[in-house]
């Protein structure tokens, strides 16, 4: 009996560890301080964005420098739902995903005509165009931006229960809610990508990444795959953007469409951790957060260090920190490689 499997002992152990981590994460607001919850919110949302960019660039070969378009449009759609339609901010978050999806369709139509470097610049220009157009949207504050109205932020669904449960104030309850939503989002995004990579679609994706011509010759539709990956990543990026700006409750075109915050940081996280692996962004976001904490008082030195670190890693360890660990130890916490197992094969060793 032979079986094709992606399961390994390390993979199963990781799944159990992550399950425990998630349970602890859910219960954390009972013990943790408000600032810790805010830091974790930051880490989780950046990790979500990093996993999505990694899906695009690391697996799909789509090096986009314009993901801030989807963060921004998602955030603005959420604000529009709250301010113009009077929705509850939590229910307006899916609106962000929808808006990002709708923007991604014409973006893909346009950008997929461009190759390589042209694609990167094309997506960036589209993000700039979106930012400039949104800045004309006077109902949402135009170029200076706007805040979520008090009555909307005070009555967010579930915050009353959280206030009663943990005995915290209104603003802290909102942070806890945002943190839980971020936890849900990061688990869904990571699990979704992991599932995708272990499915038929993931196999096709890896084939296209390694050799487009060979993949197409065995019947993989590379064009369709690119569309699927781009639209999924865009919609999820929009949801994340909406959540990030629900927590800050204040928006402006420059903040929502910031290339530094939503693309540069994200790229650095992926590159430092290790592109093309699920472990990489997780490791990367931890390094990123630690650097941020250590260098917080040194202003621009922080970004300079990040930039130099990314260059050094790209030069000397292009597979990132996780690549270094993985090649030395042979460890794969999220195994996606298909192996043939069976009594005979195991017996031969």
């Amino acid at each position, binding site marked *: 009996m032979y079986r094709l499997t992606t399961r390994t002992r390390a993979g199963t152990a990781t799944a159990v560890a992550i399950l425990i981590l998630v349970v602890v994460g859910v219960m954390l607001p009972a013990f943790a301080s408000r600032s810790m919850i805010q830091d974790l919110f930051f880490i989780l949302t950046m990790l979500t964005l990093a996993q999505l960019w990694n899906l695009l660039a690391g697996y799909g070969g789509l*090096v986009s420098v314009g993901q801030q378009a989807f963060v921004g449009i998602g955030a603005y759609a959420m604000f529009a739902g709250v301010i113009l339609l009077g929705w509850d901010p939590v229910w307006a978050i899916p609106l962000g995903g929808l808006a990002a999806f709708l923007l991604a369709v014409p973006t893909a139509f346009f950008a997929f005509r461009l190759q390589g*470097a042209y694609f990167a*610049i094309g997506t960036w220009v589209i993000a700039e165009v979106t930012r400039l157009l949104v800045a004309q949207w006077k109902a949402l504050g135009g170029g200076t931006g706007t805040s979520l109205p008090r009555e909307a932020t005070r009555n967010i669904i579930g915050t009353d229960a959280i206030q009663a449960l943990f005995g915290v104030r209104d603003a802290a309850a909102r942070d806890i809610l945002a943190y839980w939503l971020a936890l849900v989002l990061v688990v869904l995004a990571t699990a979704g990508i992991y599932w995708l990579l272990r499915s038929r679609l993931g196999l096709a994706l890896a084939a296209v990444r390694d050799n487009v011509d060979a993949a197409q010759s065995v019947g993989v539709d590379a064009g369709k795959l690119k569309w699927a990956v781009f639209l999924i990543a865009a919609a999820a990026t929009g949801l994340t953007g909406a959540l990030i700006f629900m927590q800050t409750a204040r928006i402006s075109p420059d903040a929502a469409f910031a290339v530094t915050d939503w693309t540069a940081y994200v790229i650095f996280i992926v590159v430092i951790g290790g592109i093309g692996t699920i472990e990489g962004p997780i490791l990367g976001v931890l390094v990123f957060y630690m650097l941020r904490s250590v260098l917080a008082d040194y202003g621009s030195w922080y970004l300079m260090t990040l930039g130099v670190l*990314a260059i050094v890693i790209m030069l000397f360890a292009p597979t990132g920190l996780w690549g270094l660990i993985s090649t030395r130890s042979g460890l794969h916490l999220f195994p996606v490689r298909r192996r043939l197992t069976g009594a005979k094969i195991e017996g031969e060793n």
Partner: protein
Amino acid sequence: MIWIDTLVQGILLGGLYALFAAGLSLVFGIMRLVNLAHGDLIVFAAYLILVGVQVLGLSPWVSALVAMPLMFGFGWLLQTVVLNRVLGKDILPPLLVTFGLSVTLQNGLLEGFSADSQRIPAGTLEGASLDLGLVTVGVMPLLTFVSAVAAILALNWVFYHTPLGRSFRATSDDPVAAGLMGIEPKRIFAIATGIAMVVVTLAALYLGMRANFDPSIGPARLIYAFEAVIIGGLGSLWGTLAGGIIVGVAQTLGAAVNPEWQILAGHIAFLAVMLLKPRGLFPRAVD
């Protein structure tokens, strides 16, 4: 009448963008390298010129002349030590490295010179204008345009009439075959980036004399430059000038309708060209 004036101003603005883009076009054409730090390198050169003016008391022109060989050396070093290591079939590594360089340069300048706006003093040239009968043009924009054309003429001369240019073209067409003929592609790349940095210094001189600059403005210049290069088509320097003019005219026309639409109109012109001709208007090299 006002439309002719707008058009002329747009063409002259296009000269500035072509100047931003010429170095990028050269490097992109020869080694397909997407330098995301190009805009920040222009700003960096502008600060270098400013230091010459403020600290050494040089005139802006002399200061730029002094800065040019320094920038050539910097470009040569950058290519030799960093960029040559990441060039290859995969476009991701050079993209990420130059992105890292962009962020490093921006924040390095921020640390060194603060976020205050600076300007390279141009003396009497600043407000001078020239009456051409039909329209009146500023001397500075005119000078920028003439410099852009001169830079492109010079680059084209190097490209098509010198042994170095022959090596450039050979490496651009096929680095392996060029290597077989005794050309060391990495050495050629280093010289090309050095020359690109000389053009960057010229662009920086006009950037700094025409308007205020601060460490954060690099990425926007990069986008305009890239739009000019892509509209023009890979490997065509005259195409880059045409691309710069298209972006410049679109911006001035947009601004004439509504000042808030200036930048937007430039981007939309770029997107329109890309929709119609994804390889640009005058592509020379094969992608």
